[in-house]
């Protein structure tokens, strides 16, 4: 897995057993399914004790997105065409200055999107500095594919 991906995972506190698990999922998409992987995102939220709870793992390239649902306990993978295939998105955020890309401990962001002619879509959560990554994912892969 790319060094940049590992650095990203470390910034959101992923270490120990979870890293090799993510490496395995990456290998599944990259080596077994033979997709080029360009980017990574982990959907997560903060619990009442202030700890991060990781939900779903996402990989992207310019044409497809890949999701490993509840990746820390399950092996449930899917993929969908991304290219020109977004017909709706919604962004909710709090305490995150998306223009200047600055976050605080209270920053939270939620991105929801739907694929065209489908009830399927994506739902991503981010907290603290992970909001910056979610903003990057939105601009690079979701916004660009929201076309007529």
């Amino acid at each position, binding site marked *: 897995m790319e060094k940049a991906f590992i650095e990203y995972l470390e910034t959101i506190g992923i270490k120990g057993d979870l890293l090799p698990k993510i490496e395995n999922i990456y290998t599944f998409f990259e080596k077994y399914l033979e997709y080029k992987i360009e980017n990574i995102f982990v959907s997560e939220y903060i619990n*009442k004790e202030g700890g991060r709870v990781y939900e779903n793992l996402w990989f992207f390239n310019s044409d497809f997105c890949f999701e490993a649902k509840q990746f820390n*306990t399950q092996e449930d993978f899917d993929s969908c065409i991304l290219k020109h295939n977004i017909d709706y998105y919604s962004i909710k955020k709090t305490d995150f200055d998306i223009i200047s890309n600055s976050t605080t401990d209270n920053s939270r962001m939620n991105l929801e999107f739907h694929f065209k002619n489908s009830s399927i879509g994506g739902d991503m959560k981010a907290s603290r500095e992970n909001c910056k990554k979610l903003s990057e994912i939105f601009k690079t892969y979701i916004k660009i594919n929201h076309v007529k």
Partner: protein
Amino acid sequence: MDKPRNIEEYKKWLKDELSITINSRTENHYNSIANKIKADFLSSKVWNDILSQLNDYNTEYLAKTNYQLLVTDFKPELVTKSFSSFFEKTFRKNIVFNKNFPKPPYNGWVTPDNWIENTNDILRTFFVVKYLDGVEFLMEKIQNCLKQNSLDCKNHFEARDEGYYAVHLYTFNDFDIPKIDWDTEIKSISIELQITTQLQEVIGKLTHQFYEGRRVKLDKSDKKWQWNYESEEFTANYLGHILHYVEGMIMEVRNKQLKK
């Protein structure tokens, strides 16, 4: 709108009548909650107390009866309810069993705002004992363990027409679960602990599919399965009843031997 007859009609009804859209986000949110409940319960003191005391329960039962309580190397697992099964349960509550339809059921509509706390088996586990009296023995032990952890519980002695026999224990725990956006909230959620015998476990797996199929049927005017001797459920369900009877007989023989 007419009463929905299946899950697809139910989804449309929810959208048209209650403005509730069911999509991949709904499922994702449910799975996230179910996963969190499972992770929290797995690491809870009460669950680890139950696991660590199982051996003691077995030893106590063995000393009392000369028989093993549990099957060899038994270790209970926690299982989360799938979204499709969970959603189907809301269909039964809102539509199939709702005698007030098109008005809400007695306790109100079950919607995403309340459906987590309105479902008592999002997380469940199964304990399998060898003999019929082991069911009640283990139930009392687990109840005591729950009480020692200051948790309330309710028990149901299940005996269904479909030949299903088991004890279901329900205990309520507070869980910090994710909201749909990013916050979390504390909700009191029920966990189901099923206790059944080894023979019932085997037959339960066979009969459950028929039970699941029948309970979402709106039209119950079909010939009753008890009269349809050629159907698969006739054999499987009656096997459940016969095995329960046989297990009672085994207990009688066992108790007679003990008295000698």
